[in-house]
Every structure is written in C-alpha cells, then in structure tokens.
C-alpha cells in the first residue's frame, strides 16, 4: 500500500479516536512506513534480478537451440559425405522353375535354376565422377570340368567410370552395356514380363551384351538423347554348330580380340511421359575378327517402342543383323531378324500390383533351332515394389520341318528381386 495512503489512515485513526493517540505515535507510524518502503525496494530489486536471469536463460536457450541444430546438421552431413555413404551396394536375382514338354520325350525336362545372382557396386568419387559395376553369378555354380562343359558363369558385366561433362553430356570408359534394345540395359526381374527374357533380345541383339571401350552421350529438355560408343566387338564363329550365331560371338571382355573395333549409336525419345522410342545402329568392320574366313562386316539395326497409358502397356521391338561375306551368304544366314510385340495390363488388386501379358515373337536366327514363332502368356505379381513372382506359358513352333523336334510347350515359374 502506498506510503501516503498509510499516513492518511494513521492520521484518520489518530484524529477519530483521541484515546488511541496515546498508544500509536506519529513517529511509530513513520517508522512502519519506512520499514515497508524498504521491503518494497528489496522486492523490486529481486524482481529486476529475476527478470535479468530470465533474459539470460532465454538467450542461453537460443544458443543451445542453435548448437543443437548445428549438431544435427553436422551429423547429417557427416553421414552423407563419409566414404561408406558415397559407396552403394545393390543387386538383383532370379530363381526359375521350368517344366518343358518337348516334341517327343527327349525334349522334356523339369528344372530349378538360380539363373542370375547379381551384385552391383558403385562409388561416387566426386559429385560428377562415379564408378558403376555389376558382378554376376549365373546358374548358381561354376566348376572346373575336364571337357569344359559348365553351365555356370561368373562375369563382370559392367565396370566403368562415368564423368558428367556438363548438365547435358556425359562420358564413360570401361566395360558397359551396349545401348541396343530394351532389356540389354534394363533387365532387373521386376522390370519385365516372363520368367525367361524374350528370345528376340536374347538371340538376335544378343542380350546381355557388354563390351569395353569409351562412350559418350547427351540428353536434352526436349526428351531427345543420344549415345555413341567405340568399343570391342563380337567374334562370331564361322564353323561348327554355332557358325554365324550372333550370341556365340560375345567375348565378354575376357582377353577379347580387338583386331576390329565396333561402333554403336542410339537415338532415343522419351519426351512424353509413358512413351519411349529408340533406334540403334551397331557396326563392326569384321564380325569374326578374322580376315579371309568368308565373314566380313556386320551391322545391327534395331527399333523399339514402349507405350504406357494408365494400366496398359505395349512393347514392340524389331532387330536385324546384316552380315557380309561369301560364306555367310552361302549359308543363307546373312540376314538374321527378330521381332516381338507384347501388350500388358497392370492392376492394383487388393493393395498389390498384378500384371497380365501376352507376347508374340518371330525369330530368324542363324541356327535352325533359332528360327521359330512363339506365343507366351502369363502374369507378374509384385507383393512389394522390388519383388516379383512370375508365371508364364510358352508355345514354341519352329519354321522348318526338320527343326520340329525343337518345338515345345513350357510352364515357367519365377521369383525375382532387386534392391
């Protein structure tokens, strides 16, 4: 209470009751007021001290907040930039079950096969230079046999350094996939239909096809892109059961004969979401790497289109080899062609994706058993994005009467993954 108010109250008491004046003197009242004034002063001082402490605490909280934020940022940056964070590990794999009912009993077989177990390793040296690699084990087992027969393979499919030259252009040096077709570069199991890869790209292209050399390319806002590579080439055999067979010409960069290099150019358009159109041309001045054997230059032309519209998808691919040389012409395999068409639909059923497809293939390869038509129908089930279960039915009919023994119907099951 204010000192003046106290004084007035005291005065009021003294004047209103003359008998109390003897008990409380003015001096005593003044002393009381002084005492209370001192208490008020002390309380004010304490309040100021408390306010100052509060201000200091608020400042300290802000500093702590800032330090905490800096610590979180440091930890996040450290995790992103350490050598482990800049190295990536990935892979894909697929297990197949094939039940083949061949023409006559000799073509029948049932088989489990872990067809591919692939590990990929990548490392980012800087923000524009990286290493990409892919290491593969096929058919689960590689063993040393007396006659050299061995279904298993251990292969280095990719191992290249990639450098970004600017926003639109890049270059590579090392072992890389030849830019031809659809599956040659994109063949993780969840990415295609059918337990086995389609035969056109397997036999004619021949996927998976990798070579060593240098390549470069560019991509633009219009959706156009190009790739060009100078690299090792095929060494096609010119005799035996696999004569002029393209797939048998793959050297896989294992002490690969590089007498004659090869060149591949691809143009691609992906400027409309859901649409891909591409054309590739590959040329090799001597497809067997050997002069005077009746096989000279060879060129592969391929076109493909992919169209995705809502749940529907359509893939079409055509590829043709043109081989020059007297012997290959005499063998009537100087033109080897294949094409396929594959419509499909992918639906969300019960929270998971199911895809249903059919495919028609027509091949004219080098061997009579590689000249056939095939119908295929089946489905993929993706329980999660990177896992696929597959089923398909295949019906293969050969062109030549003499090759009818290679006809078959098959049921295939598969499980595949990528990460």
């Amino acid at each position, binding site marked *: 209470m204010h000192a003046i108010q106290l004084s007035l109250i005291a005065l009021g008491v003294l004047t209103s009751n003359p008998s109390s004046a003897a008990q409380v003197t003015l001096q005593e009242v003044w002393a009381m007021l002084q005492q209370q004034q001192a208490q008020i002063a002390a309380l004010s001082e304490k309040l100021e001290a408390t306010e100052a402490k509060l201000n200091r605490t608020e400042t300290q909280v802000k500093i702590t907040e800032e330090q905490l*934020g800096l610590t979180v940022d440091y930890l996040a940056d450290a995790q992103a930039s350490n050598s482990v964070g800049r190295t990536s590990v990935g892979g894909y794999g697929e297990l197949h079950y094939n039940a083949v009912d061949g023409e006559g009993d000799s073509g029948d077989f049932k088989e489990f096969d872990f067809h591919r177990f692939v590990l990929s390793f990548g490392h980012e040296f800087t923000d524009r230079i990286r290493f990409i690699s892919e290491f593969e084990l096929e058919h689960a087992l590689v063993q040393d046999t007396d006659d050299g027969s061995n279904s298993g393979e251990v292969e280095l499919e990719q191992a290249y350094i990639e450098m970004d030259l600017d926003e639109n252009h890049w270059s590579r040096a090392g072992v890389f996939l030849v830019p031809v077709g659809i599956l040659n570069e994109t063949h993780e199991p969840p990415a295609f239909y059918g337990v086995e890869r389609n035969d056109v790209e397997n036999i004619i292209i021949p996927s998976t096809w990798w070579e060593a050399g240098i390549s470069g390319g560019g991509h633009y806002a219009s959706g156009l892109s190009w790739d060009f590579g100078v690299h090792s080439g095929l060494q096609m055999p010119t005799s035996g059961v696999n004569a002029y067979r393209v797939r048998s010409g793959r050297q896989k960069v294992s002490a690969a004969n590089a007498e004659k290099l090869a060149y591949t150019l691809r143009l691609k358009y992906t400027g409309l979401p*859901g649409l891909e159109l591409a054309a590739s041309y590959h040329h090799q001045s001597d497809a067997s790497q050997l002069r005077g054997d009746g096989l000279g230059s060879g060129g592969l032309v391929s076109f493909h289109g992919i169209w995705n519209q809502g749940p529907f998808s359509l893939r079409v691919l055509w590829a043709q080899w043109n081989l020059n040389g007297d012997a290959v012409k005499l063998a009537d395999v100087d033109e080897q062609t294949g094409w396929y068409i594959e419509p499909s639909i992918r639906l969300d059923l019960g929270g998971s994706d199911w895809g249903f497809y059919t495919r028609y293939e027509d091949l004219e390869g080098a061997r009579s058993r590689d000249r056939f038509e095939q119908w295929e129908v089946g489905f993929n089930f993706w329980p999660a994005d990177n896992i696929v279960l597959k089923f398909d039915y295949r019906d293969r009919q050969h062109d030549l009467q003499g090759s009818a023994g290679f006809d078959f119907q098959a049921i295939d099951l598969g499980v595949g993954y990528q990460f």
Partner: protein
Amino acid sequence: MIIGCVLTLVGAPAYAGPEVYQTPNEFIAQAFGGHAPDAQALWIKPGLRGELTEVLGHNPGLRVRYWGRGTRTVWVLDEIGKDFPITAGIVVNDGAIEDIRVLVFRESRGWEIKYRFFTRQFLNARLDHRHLTRKIDGITGATLSVRAMKRMARAALLLHEHSVASSNTLAQAR
C-alpha cells in the same frame, strides 16, 4: 568419330562444381518471389516419424529444415534413386504441389526426371491416405529414380501438413 569421342572424354572442360541445375538457394528464393524467409526446423516427433518412415521406407532423421510463408512451404530433400542420392526441391502451397525440381542428379541413368516433361506430372498433386492424387507415368530404365521422386513428393506434402499444423497449434496456444 573416334577422335571426337577421345576428345570428349579426356578434354573435359575445367568444370569444378557439381552437376547442379538450380542451387537450393536459387530454388527457394524463386519460390518466394526473390525474398526467401528464414529457414525453420520441423522436428520429427513420434507421430510424424511413423508416417514419414512409411512414406520414405527409412529413418527420416531428427529434423527437416524448411522455408515457409503464409500457405506456402519449400522443402529440399534427398532420396537415393538406384545408386546415389537425388536432391529435389518441392514447393507446396495450400496442400498441393506447386513446383518440383531436381536440384542435384548423381545417377548414371534416369536423367529424364530432371526435365519438365516428367516433373509437370506432379503439379497440383495432393496427398490422399499418404498417396499422391495424381498418376505419375514411369520411365523405362529409371524406375528407381521415378520412385525416389514420388517418395520425396509424398514426404513434402506430409511435412507441409505437419508444419502448417504446428503453426496453427502454436497460434491457438497464443
């Protein structure tokens, strides 16, 4: 042609910086008409952590920095495509994606996601039960990069909800 390729490979220009198309700061400033607000931090509390982990498929970290003014927020996020992180900037306005751009691309494949012909599919997308309301057509050979962009878009929309909710809650408390 061989000489051209060799020159292309070995004669790379003295390009010292990373492959950045628009820096994060440029992207953020552009979103706010050239005057970016101060960065704020959204701490990932338990409820949000569960939702964000479901969207991203991994631990989302302790906090996310963002820039916000009015109904607009801007997020700069990183997600791994196939092998390496992709950095994307996402502008969310009133619960819908207003802009999305790849700011840093480090992958060997999937370059298509950098361009407008792909990213415009995300415009005006909202969240419906943690999924985008717009269908995004994929790109053959870039599936993992496309998925990374979709995860970042969903994460930005989710974070926007929580940042706006946080602001509203604080405003009500005051």
